[in-house]
């Protein structure tokens, strides 16, 4: 019950703030609503046995990234609504229409999926398809240990590759934003 309540509140928070992000005229408001939405997500993550991710969500996303957003907004002095932001012409109805259509399509497909877990007999020749195979421990699912275990074995390469992404970002930001090179 508590679960449901938490879910309900968090979900409402996520969706409502997300809508406000889109609807707010002020960029600052949008950013703040986005933070709110991300916080809601963190709650949901927690509920979904992902405490580490929940923490990261709060610290990195809602914290660092959104602060960066706010910082840039203030830096540029664009903390007012754009003049003529609402002048979109046909784009607005079309945008709403197709966004709804997309939502409807995805929703339709989600609803069409078999509800819950259908347990089927395990055919003899079927092999385990888990990425981590037997290494995944059902018991400590969601723990930081389990995450770390996956990260540094199965996903070691990806972890290393991330360094390149970050390096690129670093260099790129310097190139683009440094006033004098």
């Amino acid at each position, binding site marked *: 019950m508590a679960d449901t309540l938490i879910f309900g509140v968090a979900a409402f928070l996520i969706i409502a703030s997300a809508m406000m992000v889109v609807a707010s005229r002020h960029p600052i408001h949008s950013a703040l609503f986005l933070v709110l939405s991300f916080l809601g997500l963190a709650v949901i993550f927690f509920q979904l046995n992902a405490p580490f991710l929940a923490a990261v969500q709060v610290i990195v996303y809602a914290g660092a990234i959104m602060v960066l957003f706010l910082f840039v907004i203030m830096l540029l002095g664009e903390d007012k609504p754009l003049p003529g932001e609402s002048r979109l012409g046909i784009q607005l109805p079309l945008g709403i229409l197709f966004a709804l259509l997309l939502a409807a*399509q995805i929703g339709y497909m989600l609803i069409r999926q*078999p509800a819950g877990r259908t347990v089927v007999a*395990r055919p003899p020749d079927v092999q385990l398809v*888990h990425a981590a195979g037997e290494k995944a421990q059902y018991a400590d699912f969601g723990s930081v240990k389990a995450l770390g275990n996956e990260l540094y074995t199965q996903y070691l390469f990806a972890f290393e*590759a991330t360094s*390149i992404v970050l390096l*690129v970002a670093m*260099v790129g930001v310097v190139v683009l934003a440094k006033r004098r090179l």
Partner: protein
Amino acid sequence: MTLDQLSQNYNLAVLAPELSLTLFALAVLLFGAFFTDETQRRLLPVLALLGAGISAASTAALWDKGRVFGDPATAIYVADNFALFFKWIFLIGLVAAILISGRFLSPRSGDSHVVAGEYYGLMMLSTVGMMFVSGARDLLVLFLGIETLSIALYVLAGFSRRRFMSNEASLKYFLLGAFAAGFLLYGIAMVYFATGSTLFPHIATAIAQGQITMADGTARAVPQPILFIGMALLLIGLGFKAALVPFHQWTPDVYEGSPTPVTAFMAVGAKAAAFAAFLHVFPGVFGSLYGQWLNVVLVIAVLTMTVGNIIAISQSSLKRMLAYSSIAHAGYLLVGVLAASAAAHGGSPDLEAARDATGGVLFYLVAYALMNMGAFAVLVYLENVRDVQGADRDSEEANIRISELSGLAWRQPLVAGALTVFLLSLAGIPPTAGFFGKFIIFREAVRQGLIGLVLVGVLNTVISVYYYLRPVLSMYTPDEAAQNMGSGDMLVESTGGGAATLRSVARPLSLGIVLAIVLCAVAVIGMVILQAAVFPMARDAAGLSASVPVTQGAVPLLR
């Protein structure tokens, strides 16, 4: 797991191409910080080329070894021939882009500092990202690779920071790229939810079997609707990168706005990477669902070819025209992809045909890389000419218009001749590389009975001839003023003014551009003979797949 095991499983030699390139990129970045401008300009390209060379050599060393990084059953990164072949293509793009970038990086008024280190470094790191895509065996790596290459390209597109167009290109590319990445990621999430894995072979197996087994021993059906959503969103995400219609609209703007060497790099490398990803995902992972996505991709292929070619007709800027042309080429490549898929997963799977077709796509990418790079190299050369003449390269009118080529052939016969070769090759006229590329792709499509698609492709080729030949016509148009100048050979300085046409030539040529143009031209024409070596390799690359396990019913090709 001990460290020994780790080092056994995770053999860094497999990553030699990526590592060497990364190391050199770091070196380039560091040198850029420490050396003087002049030294940088001379040293860095050499260093970058050296890195590319070592990377290519290590790629060659890995050829046919079929090594993987990690436990062969679950490794998320492999160095099979498919990946290695793509690495070569990326390296072609990288090398050519480095060669033609020389003048772009030369100091200009207002800049106190040369940013060559960052420029080459980003290009090399972007190439590493492409390599990740080609070697990916997991959607995660695929995603990371795409993001790596894209983020680097976002920056490169905006590298002419003073130029409005460059800013604009960068912003558009970034916003739309991130938007597309959202689709891609959501698609991956859906696929993950449906199949329980992001590892290609596992996804393929799950789809083939229609169910997945959980860790607790129970099994669950693969929810088809969610899988399909995932597939559709993946198609959108990858389609954006490959510039398929209707996800192509960023292409002309970004290509036109970016600095020309970057555009060249983007058009070759990013496109090849996108097709590597596409080949991984559609004929590969989703191969057994071929019947379901066939028609959609077919429509996209037709649209891509047609829209790209038709809009290209009315372009007046050479660069923008080449941008549309690259859209059209994506369409042709898609024909090859479809042929490959049909061969591998059609009514009667035919391994050989599938290899031929995939090899055809790879071969086409090589040809495309060469001819497109060549064309862009000439374009860069022409821009340099104008630059030398003192035109403001940051101005918004900096793009070369097709009409400005008028009479070029009589002043610069070799440059004009080279551009002619590249354009003819892009149009697919024998006996150029482009022709052989088209030949194989259409041939395989015919083999798979996709006659209608081939006819559309042929019709499009005819349309494309119009805009490819327009610059040729312009170049070979006798220009009275030019005739008075007498012969103008490529390296001879000649006088003459006039801002309207590109007349005066005061050594805008660097060794790099000459090399790029000559090598590309030789390769494009030499494909008559070279293809005897290249195509079998491409075919090997398609066939020698390291990892996808055999599942019932589907032919485990194309990874």
